[in-house]
């Protein structure tokens, strides 16, 4: 028997696996399969089925238009109010649903975690992907809305994927962090809905960033979604709404920090998920 046999991999106490990212690639189909499962399960045993995917954002938008546009009469920088709101609601709905789902994803898949191995990172990521699909559906509605108002996009729209990507990583970083905390401390189950609700009011969804007093702006930009939402508006309105590089850079910076903290904490605690969940 050869003693110095090369082993394909080694599990060692307290050491991160070298094959983690390779494994992630090997299990890449699982991203898709888990996301597909969540989507196809969601509308089972409902009468109108997939129609809910369209109805939900549409109804929320109408409420916003009535409350902020008609009752509060907030300025919309010359863009039709429904489009102004919807352009911001797209990233916000994406963020809030992805954040809530990702944070709870590990717990709702605890049966998988305690019985099968695969890179755990896949679970929260797959739930963010589900929200991306929802986003795309809402985006089609927006296109229809713009056609209705005869409001045509310009080249600015081509920058939209960048802002989507930015919000994807914002929510992934935050989601991974909270999801891994949630495994051990179930308090976060109660914190998450609160954060999502509060976030709606401290993000420029129903109103424009311009109504925030100048001296508080920098502080306001600490919310990474401010840059994302303003970016979305800017791209959709063809540059009609304001967007400055400070908020974009801050948004990118904070997203980066969130991702580093999130992935680090996730990787550190991941090995013991099965023990504490």
């Amino acid at each position, binding site marked *: *028997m*050869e003693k110095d*046999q090369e*082993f*394909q*991999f*080694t*599990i*060692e*106490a*307290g050491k991160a696996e070298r094959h983690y990212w390779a494994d992630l690639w*090997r*299990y890449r*189909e*699982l991203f898709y*399969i888990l996301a597909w*499962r969540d989507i*196809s*399960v969601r509308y*089972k*045993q409902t009468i109108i089925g997939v129609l809910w995917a369209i109805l939900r954002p549409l109804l929320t938008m109408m409420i916003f238009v009535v409350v902020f546009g008609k009752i509060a009469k907030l300025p919309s920088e010359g863009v039709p109010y429904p489009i102004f709101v919807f352009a911001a609601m797209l990233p916000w709905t994406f963020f809030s649903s992805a954040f809530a789902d990702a944070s709870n994803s590990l717990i709702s898949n605890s*049966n*998988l*975690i*305690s*019985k*099968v*191995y*695969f890179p755990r990172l896949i679970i929260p990521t797959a739930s963010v992907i589900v929200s991306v699909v929802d986003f795309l559906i809402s985006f089609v509605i927006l296109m229809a809305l713009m056609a209705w108002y005869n409001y045509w996009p310009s080249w600015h729209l081509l920058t939209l994927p960048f802002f989507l990507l930015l919000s994807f990583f914002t929510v992934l970083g935050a989601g991974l962090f909270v999801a891994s*905390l949630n495994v*051990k*401390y*179930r*308090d*976060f189950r109660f914190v998450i809905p609160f954060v999502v609700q509060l976030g709606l009011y401290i993000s420029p969804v129903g109103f424009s960033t311009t109504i925030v007093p100048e001296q508080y702006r920098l502080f306001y930009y600490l919310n990474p979604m401010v840059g994302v939402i303003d970016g979305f508006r800017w791209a959709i309105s063809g540059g009609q709404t304001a967007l400055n590089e400070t908020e974009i850079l801050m948004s990118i910076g904070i997203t980066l920090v969130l991702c580093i903290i999130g992935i680090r904490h996730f990787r550190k605690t991941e*090995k*013991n*998920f*099965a*023990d*504490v969940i």
Partner: protein
Amino acid sequence: MTVAIKVENLSKKYLIQHEKKSAHYETFSESIIQTGKSVIDKIRLPWGNGGIEQSTEEEFWALKNINFEINQGDKVGVIGRNGAGKSTLLKVLSRITGPTTGKIHINGRIASLLEVGTGFHPELTGRENIFLNGAILGMSRKEIRKKFDEIVAFAEVDKFLDTPVKRYSSGMYVRLAFAVAAHLESEILVVDEVLAVGDARFQRKCLGKMREVSKAGRTILFVSHNMAAIKALCDFGIYMCDGKALPISSVSDAFLNYSVQDKESNRVRFPVEVDELIIYSVDIGQDDVWSLSELDGSKQIKISIEFEVLSDLNLFRLGFFVKGNTGELLLRSLLADWNEDYEDIKAGKYCVTGIIDRAFFIEGSYLFELHASRYGIKDYGVNKRISIPIKILSPAEYNTAHIGEPHVGVVLAHDEWTINKYLN
């Protein structure tokens, strides 16, 4: 031969919480308060004070310093009592949870099956669940598509492929789940107690499938409480007890260890007194050598029991039961079996000796349990306290042409054959 799995100094620690209110998970605030408290304690008592510190957590070592090597193509059964650490070992091997200390080297793709139907979603159809479950177990869609028909045929659910599995009978559900898992392709397969599902016919089918899989040269690590299943499937055994593992041995030796260690934890302390019966000793031997644990199959087996009864008894029965290593009863042999007069016994001290014919048991591990009862009145229950594991070797003159050939059947017979050749 190449090594498939090599485990070095593997240990796994769990922290058990001793809390009255929240048993399962701590709350964030609690942990903050705890941290705060310990900081304050540190400041107040910088040199520490063991007496004051209130420990709410206890360490529990589920695995203690485990070492073994499994060669490629070996089929290894892991046996031991509940809580011995078998499942934890499989969990660490399949990377579900990390070890506390030690290393595991693995060669080849490892697939683990710790539960049947992990990830099945009740709302999805059978067809959808095959893909979902397959992907979770690490199969690619291409692989699943290739094996799809085979899986469906094995599970016998072709009529219900497009029905949500929540409408399945539990038998169908389990069949489908096992079918997916059974078609996993991997060099190493880790299986925990999954055959305990379905009806007897399906269990046989599963076992057959496992055997087929094992013939393909794959390495298998198998935990089950179904000893017959382990015997049928595995060549080697690891006996685990209290988180420790004995070196890999043959399956029958592992079972012998199992029964020995199992009894060792409550080793018999003679005399054993039950009501009016006192047992002073029980001994097994051959020729005039006693206290043997390994017997020669070509010689008679002697059993001697010293006991005392404190009053005159009728309907008294004393003797032993011999069980095979899966616990099945093979032989009952009692003092009064062939002589009813022995059932009436006067108060006093006795020594009885029983003899089992030579060349009666096939080679293997057995358990000799003492039996004492009064027919229809009571069982003294001494079998729980006095049982002796015995290994019996093949008679030297038996099957001499093929010494290594495994024994078949349950008993040997000291049979005599003659052959006569016809002249034309």
